[in-house]
């Protein structure tokens, strides 16, 4: 329900108002909508295509997904062992208890062959760093992307509803947000690990490795307040903008205003936030694995990052590999995000 008119504070800007009315009345012509919508996506694609950096980033992400899902098993067959296979004895783990350096040959007790650890061993269990990096990409990307989608979905809906409708909707959503924010997640997670954690880890939906769903649930359940609050703030400010008022004045419905005037303005912060949060979730996963929740024995970038801390002076390369992988991925997501943002928001390209 729209706010009562006397509450709206109009802060002028005649040119803006006029332009907004003009654009609004244009879209009101129902018969043209179909054609215009197609044109819109076409425009988006056209603008996006021009952005070479964004295209490059998109290609990188596609390659990464292939690398994670397709190439890993091939490399596994090539090197002759799996990412979870243990090489407990020298030279995979030397007598000083340090993981092997890159290009170390180790004896594989299962096949009797001499296997090569291309990037060396990941830990004192002598597991193959390269394979773990590749297999870890899959789990980490799944966790990070699914969690981001979950968080953004809940956050955007609740946040924009709270900001747009204000009143009781806002009060209830804001209160729930505060409970979520103040919730002692760490303690919850530890209790979870010791109680229903193992059962939860076993939920795989037939597709995901063990623990992925647990992490996605935890992250989505406790992470949505962040985008929700940002969205709420944005919407609060947008809904008071001249063009929204103008649209309301000409009698546009709430859902139309949200779709045509509010959501497009949320695209930029949403994209920026999601492209960064993807990387944060990989790190959070490292933190939570340490507390015994989520990915336990399978490889993940989080695992690799946290075990690399143990060897920060003796095997600094162990931080480099997952760190670099994570950074390139985040960079690609961000550049892609920039490109998408510009493509969706034509005004930015005026600059």
């Amino acid at each position: 329900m729209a706010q009562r008119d006397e509450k709206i504070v109009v802060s002028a800007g005649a040119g803006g108002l006029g332009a907004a009315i003009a654009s609004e009345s244009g879209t009101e012509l129902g018969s043209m909508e179909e054609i215009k919508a197609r044109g819109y996506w076409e425009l988006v694609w056209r603008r996006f295509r021009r952005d070479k950096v964004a295209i490059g980033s998109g290609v990188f992400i596609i390659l990464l997904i292939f690398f994670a899902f397709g190439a890993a098993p091939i490399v596994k067959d090539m090197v002759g062992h799996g990412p979870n296979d243990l090489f407990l004895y020298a030279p995979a783990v030397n007598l000083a208890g340090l993981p092997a350096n890159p290009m170390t040959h180790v004896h594989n007790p299962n096949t009797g062959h001499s296997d090569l650890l291309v990037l060396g061993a990941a830990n004192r269990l002598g597991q193959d760093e390269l394979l773990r990096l590749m297999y870890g990409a899959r789990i980490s990307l799944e966790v990070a992307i699914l969690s981001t989608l979950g968080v953004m979905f809940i956050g955007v809906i609740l946040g924009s509803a709270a900001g747009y409708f204000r009143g009781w909707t806002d009060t209830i959503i804001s209160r729930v947000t505060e409970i979520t924010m103040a919730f002692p997640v760490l303690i919850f997670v530890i209790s979870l690990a010791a109680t229903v954690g193992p059962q939860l880890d076993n939920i795989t939906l037939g597709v995901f490795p063990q623990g992925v769903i647990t992490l996605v649930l935890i992250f989505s359940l406790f992470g949505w307040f962040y985008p929700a609050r940002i969205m709420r703030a944005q919407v609060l400010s947008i809904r008071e903008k001249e063009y929204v008022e103008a649209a309301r004045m000409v009698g546009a419905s709430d859902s139309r205003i949200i779709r045509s005037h509010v959501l497009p303005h949320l695209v930029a912060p949403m994209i920026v936030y999601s492209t960064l949060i993807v990387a944060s979730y990989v790190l959070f996963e490292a933190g939570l694995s340490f507390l015994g929740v989520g990915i336990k024995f399978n490889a993940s970038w989080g695992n690799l990052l946290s075990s690399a801390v143990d060897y920060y002076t003796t095997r600094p390369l162990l931080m480099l590999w997952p760190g670099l992988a994570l950074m390139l991925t985040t960079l690609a997501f961000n550049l892609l995000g920039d490109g998408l943002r510009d493509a969706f928001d034509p005004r930015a390209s005026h600059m």
Partner: protein
Amino acid sequence: MHRRLWLSVAMLVAGASLLVAASFASAGTASHALKQGGIWKYGTTGASVQVDPQIAYITTAWWLEYSTAAKLYNYPDKPGPAGSTLHPEVASKFTVSKNGKTYTFTIRKGFKFSNGKPVTPASFKYAIDRVANKGLASPGAQFITDPNGTNIVGAAKVNSGAAQHVSGVSVKGQKLTVHLTKPDGTFMAKITMPFFQATSTALPLSQEVVTVHSANDLPSAGPYTYTRNDVNQLTSVRRNKFYKTGPGRHRPHNLQGLDVFWNQNEATLYNQVAANQVDEDPVPSPDKVQGLANQYKVNKSRFWAKSQNCTGYLPLNMSNSLFKGNLPLRQAVNYAIERAPYVGQAGPYAGDTWTHLFNPGVPGWRNVSLYKRNLATAKKLAKGHLKNGKITVYFRSSGTVNPAQAQIVRSDLQAIGFQSGNINMKGFSGGNIYTAMGVKGNDADMGVSMGWCSDFPDPYDWINVLLYGPSIQADNNVNYSYMNIAKWNKKMASAAKLVGPKRYKVYGQMDLDLMKQVAPLAATRTYNNRYFFSNRINPKSLVYQGIYQDFSIGAMALK
């Protein structure tokens, strides 16, 4: 691992005869050559411990208490066997009544608390009153209210809250008399635990002292005293300026004092000691240990490794269907575990591989290896004994060492035929695995990264405590294997009554027989304490005291 310590080799063999008043040679003969003064900075990754003498119980707490306490009888600051014989300290002598129930101590004059007040027999009576006090809830109460062991007359009444003073303890002139409900050979060992040190009446009877800002806040009568306790930050001990050499007072006190920094980070602490800003790091980072050993040699200058009276093992739950009556599978596990890398996860010098309960700190231990890793044997034994093929394994999920050990065990279980999907690994943070495994009827088939440290160097504390069936209760069990076999229960009960060399011989054999014929657990390792020191410390001053298994603070000196 936290270990509490109390005890004496003498305790069960018992009695006065061993407490020969020894020669009063100054504890460190070379002490005059050592530098006097200076503050020793000690960092630890552990959390703050209690400082109240009647509450302090865990390892680091007792290590500090041994420097601040003045006790009736005490262990000298000497390494090896010389350090584990009781000597008179505040008491000049004691007598036992013919019926063995009354002990009378003669208290020396000249001991003073750090607030200048003299130590009297009442100081020891006050300690016993505090230990027994209901409101204070001292962990020491269990040692003097045990109906089957040491039971001081009236202590149980005080502990139930019905009285304030333990009626069985009386003071007359310089004499302190303690009445027991029944004769008890372990009394001397127990009364020399830090709980029963001379305690100033400045400490409130039923309230724990936590915050300390000066030597008057928590007065003690040993060579050192607490001068500061900021919980989880800094704890300081400094010389007790009223501790003057005299009869019974010849313990070394080279340092001006010692500062303990709590909750330090393993890697950061290492850096601080390497930069000589902190003097002692009792938990050097595993990846640096070999480097230290190569550079400084072991037990010579800045790197030391000393054994603890602890054994690591994987309990195999004999009350759940998988291992119940399944000796071949229990043996198979013993043959399958790769112990060397299991220990190696904690880095070099973390301990040795071990295949039976008694480590070299337990009297009667045998130096044998019962289970050499043999996958073929393990597979043969396991074949047809996997029941439904499912196994639930509890492991410790904190840190990186424990989960890595769990992975080794998991891979070894797969090697003897368990399918990876049928191995249910259940993680527990911190010490919660012990709580979970201690509940009777829990669903664990086995536990990883568990271990036991002896409270006192006697085999009883291993076999009877860990494997005696009738002591199993609803929760808080330590018999994590839930072994309860009538034949063995009887053997354990009768061995407990033996004394002298025969006791150790019988127990030593029983340890091996149990591991081979019952295999209620798979022993994995022994434990070492590893230390990294700054270049400020004098390595000649390091005296490893076997009773509390750490370096004597009194003997320590800087360069």
